[in-house]
């Protein structure tokens, strides 16, 4: 066989393998240049880690003060998966030039969002399971899914693919958490009065969340970009 397996030094010493671009097999329509640069993605990841870490700590605080046994046990798994998400975000940070010690770095986008998280944590006594769950499963987690998906769409699809991978897993699990939490809430809110309690709590927190600009503090521009 006269075909070359490896290229030589002169132009007529090329191999005979057919040329393809990096995107031809399979066809890849992704383009370079996303909405966020390295520093912006790092900031968003720190913000996401903050939300996931605080959410799992808050749910940890609630397990003992929620009387419904299936809610206690169900939260156990949600807590663990929240911790895993925070852990993955943390591991991404050194890859985004935040330093090796950045794996434990969480950062609220602003004081408004930090205040919103403390408001979610507010309900304490055993008669407030609805208020507790609404904050996480009707308001915060759906918001995170929205922002995670926005980030996945808007970030550089090739250069920032590792972040997208983490977000894909987080979205898949968070959607499952929301489905579980909302099924529990549907069951608990079995009268109009209780459904009203759920709505009132969700409205109050959603307003506070929007005012803060959400987990990244850029809710308005994120939504504007989508529109």
């Amino acid at each position, binding site marked *: 066989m006269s075909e070359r397996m490896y290229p030589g030094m002169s132009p007529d010493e090329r191999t005979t393998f057919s040329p393809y671009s990096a995107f031809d097999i399979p066809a890849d329509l992704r383009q370079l240049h996303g909405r966020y640069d390295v520093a912006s993605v790092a900031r968003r990841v720190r913000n996401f880690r903050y939300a996931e870490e605080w959410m799992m*700590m*808050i749910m*940890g*605080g609630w397990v*003992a003060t929620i009387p419904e046994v299936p809610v*206690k046990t169900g939260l156990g798994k949600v807590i663990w998966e929240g911790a895993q998400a925070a852990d993955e975000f943390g591991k991404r940070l050194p890859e985004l030039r935040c330093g090796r010690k950045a794996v434990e770095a969480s950062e609220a986008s602003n004081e408004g969002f930090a205040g919103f998280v403390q408001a979610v944590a507010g*309900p304490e006594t055993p008669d407030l399971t609805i208020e507790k769950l609404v904050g996480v499963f009707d308001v915060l987690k759906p918001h995170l899914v929205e922002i995670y998906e926005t980030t996945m769409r808007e970030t550089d699809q090739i250069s920032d693919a590792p972040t997208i991978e983490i977000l894909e897993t987080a979205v898949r699990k968070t959607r499952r958490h929301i489905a579980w939490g909302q099924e529990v809430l549907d069951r608990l809110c079995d009268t109009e009065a209780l459904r009203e309690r759920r709505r009132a709590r969700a409205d109050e927190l959603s307003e506070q969340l929007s005012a803060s600009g959400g987990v990244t503090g850029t809710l308005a521009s994120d939504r504007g970009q989508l529109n």
Partner: protein
Amino acid sequence: MKRFIEPNELARDSRFIRQDNAMATVLASMPDDVDAIVAAFEQFSPMIEESVRGTAAQELFEAYGPAFTLVVLNEPLDPDSAAATMRLILRMHGIFVGELQALEGAARSLWDFPDAPWEFKMNMARQCWDEGRHVQIFEKLLEHLGGHVGMFPESTFLFEAACSDDPAMRVAGVNRGLEGLACDVFRDMIRYAEKTGDEVMQQAVDYVLADEITHVRFGSEWVKEFTKGDPEHLQKTQDFRREVDKQFSFGGSRSDREDAAIPIAWEDRKEAGFSEEELQDLASVSAEGPSKETLTQAAQILRERFHAKRNGEGARS
């Protein structure tokens, strides 16, 4: 949401009733003296009766009097012994609420210690999932044996004894004391299930035991980490663990003595990170309670006096 809660703040649904923790303290500090044990139980008899009223334990109270816990705790589980199934269900129910409190203890560690290292939070979060599954497993096993949640009163003694506001002590109490006790109890349950051919129980408890060994290991590692470079703190932690171990030995019922109802699971504990020295210490601390002979005599006297009193009341009425 505040940091640190009291045991009476553990939220429960309407199936549960509470048991006064004073009884557990009495059990943990009983001397090797028949008269002293009889006097203690007679003193607590009205409280014990009140706490079991309307629960499945009322049947055991009527049969054995206020010392029914002595019989239940002190005699090894044997499928051929009297009321074996009810005693097994009672133990299973105790494990179920123990798992519930372990879930609550691990979960509270996430909230109570916000500045703890991230790896600690990861371990506690993982433990939340595991303990949540254990609660589910033991609810299924309770049903498997014909029992149900809430059929016996719940003592919050485990949560109270283990949940310190110092993270090193918390992991020493919950992960090494409480989870270590779980290793001993589960190894005993597996032996029982093997004896009765109950493969469902045998396999499920074996999985749970594997998880518990991991949790004890978390405790072993974090006690070292939290007390690194501070021998005084380490000593305090070890003293606390010894105190918890003594309370969890229920007057020698869980010990390395030949007559122990629940033997120490020596090999499982070694795998979980307990040193030979710590195990020798545990064997010594847990053996400090009254002998089995003393407890048997006390239980017999209490049972006779209880029935005599009941018969007297019956005759008068």
